[in-house]
């Protein structure tokens, strides 16, 4: 997948753990892990909003496009 989730980097920058973040954004630990490990197929705007709010960042900080599939 050419969309990379840099959620772990942002979490490290803000010094926030998986448990704390999942509690704050109100989704289960298991689901947040799926997202963090790039196993998710899609992301809800509500989740993205909650993450941006809690990590005080922009969607661009956690979502990155790399065209590694080309040539």
């Amino acid at each position, binding site marked *: 997948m050419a969309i990379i989730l840099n959620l772990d980097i942002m979490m490290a920058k803000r010094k926030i753990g998986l448990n704390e973040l999942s509690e704050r954004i109100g989704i289960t630990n298991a689901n*947040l892990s799926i997202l963090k490990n790039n196993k998710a197929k899609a992301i809800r705007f509500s989740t993205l909003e909650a993450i941006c709010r809690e990590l005080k960042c922009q969607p661009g900080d956690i979502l990155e496009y790399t065209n590694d599939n080309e040539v």
Partner: protein
Amino acid sequence: MKNEGYKVLSSFIKFIIIALLASDVVVMASLPWTLQWLMSVFYEGNIAIMYAFYMVILYIFGILMLFILNELRVIFNSVEKSDPFILRNVTALKRISKASMITCIIFLVKTFAVNSLMTMVSLFIFFIASLFCIVLAEVFRRAVEYKNDHDLTI
């Protein structure tokens, strides 16, 4: 409907299914004697041939019902656990469909041998049930896909 009431209901249906499974086993186990007794009371003519015919028909029917009831038990087990959207249930529905179609054929054979209104009604019901289950299996397969998609949308 409240989730709790729905779970209680599923458990109740599962209980009925298990009771039916047990009855099926008991009836099959006692069939040689029950059938002999029933035929001695109600039937006149060549008992030996008819006895053999009914024994075969009823045992096949009994085993098919055992199979169908067991698949239904699997389905309601998953419903009870609030997770009915699994591929195992699609398989269960397809199996029930096939078993119903075989049951329908058994009844068709019986219609040609010894006809009765109840046999014909049963034949029709199992035929329709078989078709219903194929369609339901396909509908369920799509529901499972939606559910899996939903689970990976965080």
